[in-house]
């Protein structure tokens, strides 16, 4: 048992000692700050039409805890669903496979390590929530239990379930991270859709893995009683509206029931049981065993070739003279080739399906939903644009090549932009036919922005995760028509020029930062 603690600790430290995690924590501080919006803000996070809770300890504590549970349930999965993959990439897995540790033991370590990573983030939102109480202070007394209890009873069990599901997803879907996320997102969506179902005190809240229906039920009950209303809907998330005046209600938290508390423990046990079941299917880093017949045939073929050929002399021979060519076109060609060859073929079929749909769907639907989706389907391609050199340990060649900053990096950026524009071509052509030049500019700027965001975050963090999470949030924002973070300009804007200027400034900042940081990295290996 004591070895398990050491292993969990080592795994946790390995995953958190990175720049990308540091950036994640910085973003967390900002997110936690925005969980509790001021009274004059244009958005709410816990939304009941026309109502807002008074800023007492219970409101601030519960809103923060529930928002942490909601947001980390969605994005936290993306953050932690690479624990096993890391062991494959670093080949530490091969060492682990030869140790006496059982499959279940190993997966359990991953579960707890995932949980600790999410817990660290939750710890930050928890701390910030107390700071926010003082910042937003309305003279209510500070009650510590109003902050800690919802975190322990909502957020922690929810994060434990997420951690377990991330392990299970990795076992069954391996490196197919997009597919993992799509499936997870639908499961999560289905669960979230049910949060307004059972009323407070109803035992069916036990079936909600995130336990949020207990909060929604309690709030509805409070408002309906206090104001004689018949509110049926309470929602979580960043919800933007132009509404400025709200009626304030005082809410003092939920009444915890034994059923609810037991149900949290059962959900945690359930996720451990899922991990246990998945341990029977865990590959234990033996990939030849699970290789498809086609792959096995290739491996056999290679072995035949290797034994048949006798090594010839390694000889420079009569080489033709070197012709100097410092152009970037060959880079762009190879970058496009790498973008195309990445990923499974069926994924291309899905993208092709959405691409064709963009030709025929109503333009606003194509712009608001299909384009962000088809781009998001390429998330691992974009996120690898500048990180693949390091992942594949090719950066030694890149950085020691002639003018890497003026040739390699622009080629990667241009290839990414070209790729994004090709994917958006059906809509661009339709807008041109409709003479809607503003929309065309918005899409082109959106393509440049998203590629540069991938490049910049990849260069700074050295990994793919940060961009993947932010890209998901941006995609979600576009499909939810949130104008403030609609990088595609899909939501009708009052002043499109301002939108263009803002995106252009962001693009310039991202380019500058990318070149600046890469310039440093190229000389400091």
């Amino acid at each position, binding site marked *: 048992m004591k070895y398990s603690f050491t292993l969990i600790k080592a795994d946790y430290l390995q995953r958190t000692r990175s720049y990308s995690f540091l950036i994640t924590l910085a973003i967390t501080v900002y997110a936690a700050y925005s969980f509790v919006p001021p009274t004059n803000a244009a958005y709410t996070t816990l939304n009941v039409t026309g109502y807002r809770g008074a800023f007492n300890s219970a409101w601030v504590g519960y809103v923060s805890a529930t928002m942490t549970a909601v947001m980390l349930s969605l994005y936290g999965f993306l953050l932690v669903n690479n624990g096993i993959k890391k062991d494959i990439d670093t080949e530490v897995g091969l060492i682990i496979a030869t140790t006496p540790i059982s499959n279940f033991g190993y997966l359990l370590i991953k579960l707890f390590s995932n949980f600790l990573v999410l817990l660290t983030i939750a710890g930050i939102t928890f701390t910030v929530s107390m700071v926010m109480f003082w910042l937003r202070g309305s003279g209510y007394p500070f009650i510590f239990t109003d902050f800690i209890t919802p975190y322990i009873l909502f957020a922690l069990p929810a994060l434990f379930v997420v951690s377990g599901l991330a392990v299970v997803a990795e076992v069954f879907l391996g490196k197919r991270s997009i597919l993992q996320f799509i499936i997870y997102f639908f499961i999560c969506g289905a669960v979230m859709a049910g949060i307004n179902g059972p009323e407070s005190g109803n035992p069916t809240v036990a079936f909600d893995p995130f336990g949020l229906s207990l909060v929604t039920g309690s709030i509805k009950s409070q408002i309906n009683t206090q104001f004689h209303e018949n509110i049926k809907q309470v929602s979580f998330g960043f919800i933007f509206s132009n509404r400025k005046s709200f009626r304030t209600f005082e809410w003092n938290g939920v009444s915890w029931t034994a059923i609810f508390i037991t149900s949290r423990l059962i959900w945690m046990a359930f996720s451990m049981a899922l991990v246990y079941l998945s341990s029977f299917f865990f590959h234990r880093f033996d990939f030849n065993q699970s290789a498809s017949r086609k792959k096995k045939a290739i491996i056999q073929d*290679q072995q035949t070739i290797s034994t048949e050929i006798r090594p010839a002399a*390694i000889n420079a021979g009569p080489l033709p003279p070197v012709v100097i060519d410092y152009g970037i076109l060959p880079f762009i060609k190879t970058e496009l080739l790498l973008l195309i060859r990445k990923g499974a073929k069926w994924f291309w079929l899905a993208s092709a399906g959405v691409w064709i749909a963009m030709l025929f769907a109503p333009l606003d639907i194509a712009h608001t939903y299909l384009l962000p989706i088809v781009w998001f389907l390429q998330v691992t391609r974009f996120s690898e644009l500048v990180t693949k050199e390091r992942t594949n340990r090719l950066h030694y060649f890149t950085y*020691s090549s002639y003018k890497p900053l003026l040739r390699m990096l622009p080629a990667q950026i241009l290839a990414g932009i070209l790729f994004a524009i090709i994917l958006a071509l059906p809509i661009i052509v339709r807008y041109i036919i409709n003479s809607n030049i503003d929309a065309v500019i918005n899409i082109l700027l959106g393509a440049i922005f998203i590629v540069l965001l991938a490049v910049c975050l990849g260069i700074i963090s050295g990994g793919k995760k940060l961009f993947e999470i932010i890209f998901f949030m941006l995609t979600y924002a576009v499909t939810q028509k949130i104008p403030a973070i609609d990088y595609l300009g899909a939501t009708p804007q009052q002043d499109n020029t301002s939108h263009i200027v803002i995106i252009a400034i962001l693009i310039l900042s991202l380019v500058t930062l990318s070149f600046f940081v890469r310039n440093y990295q190229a000389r400091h290996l």
Partner: protein
Amino acid sequence: MSLVITNLTKQYNKNKTGLSNYSITIGKGVLGLLGPNGAGKSTLMKIIATISKPTEGTLFLDGEDIVKNPDRIRKVLGYLPQDFGVYPNLNAYEFLEYIAAMKGVGGKDLRKRIDILLEGVNLTADAKRPIGTYSGGMKQRIGIAQALLNDPKVLIFDEPTVGLDPEERMRFRQLISDLADDCIIILSSHIVSDIETIADEVAIMKGGLLLEKAIQPDIIKRVEGRVFETLIDNSELTAFKTKHLVVNTNRQKDKVSVRYITRADGPEPGSATVNATLEDAYLFLTQNS
């Protein structure tokens, strides 16, 4: 062509020094770098390859400062890092075309050039397969091919023979001696015999310092007349090691044949003088520094 390195220091942080006040002049031919792990060999190579900046010191290639103007050396550089990788989805042709583009090599004869290099490293038959399916030795050979794409005048090989089988190692050595007349070759290896057969000059390093740089016979002279062999009992070995620098042992039933270098007191009675090798000199210099 010459590479002049003066007072080069690489300080990673307060407690970690990669190189310390390192000065060396490297001319055409093969310079073999020998040193234990952490000696600073890879750090030195990275600095020459311009992917790491020195904290202090200067580096001139034919009179031009390559710390300030790294592109000067990049145009003529062939570099094989110790732990390089490849893009697994590209085949050998595509990969070498990509590296050629990095090096600024193009033209209609590029394909022919790649063909000859692939033939030279015996990868023609596998050239159209994704590199991800290659064995370690095959990847190492493609690494050697990429280093030669641009007719380099400065070649840096960091542990180049790792993963090569004995026959390939022998051919690699031949290739290096073919190239040595025309360019600067800097080569590091843990395998002293590789350096012994290839290098014109040897630089022995330890803890970021240059201990010795000379042609092989001069380095070997440092231990000439001090290397001996003798047969002792198994039980005497531990005590023997405290008196002499044991460079090799060979067990024979209850006796051990020991090759050793005397420190100060002269040889043990019954010892036979043997010819000193580069390995003896290397161990002597690194152990006694």
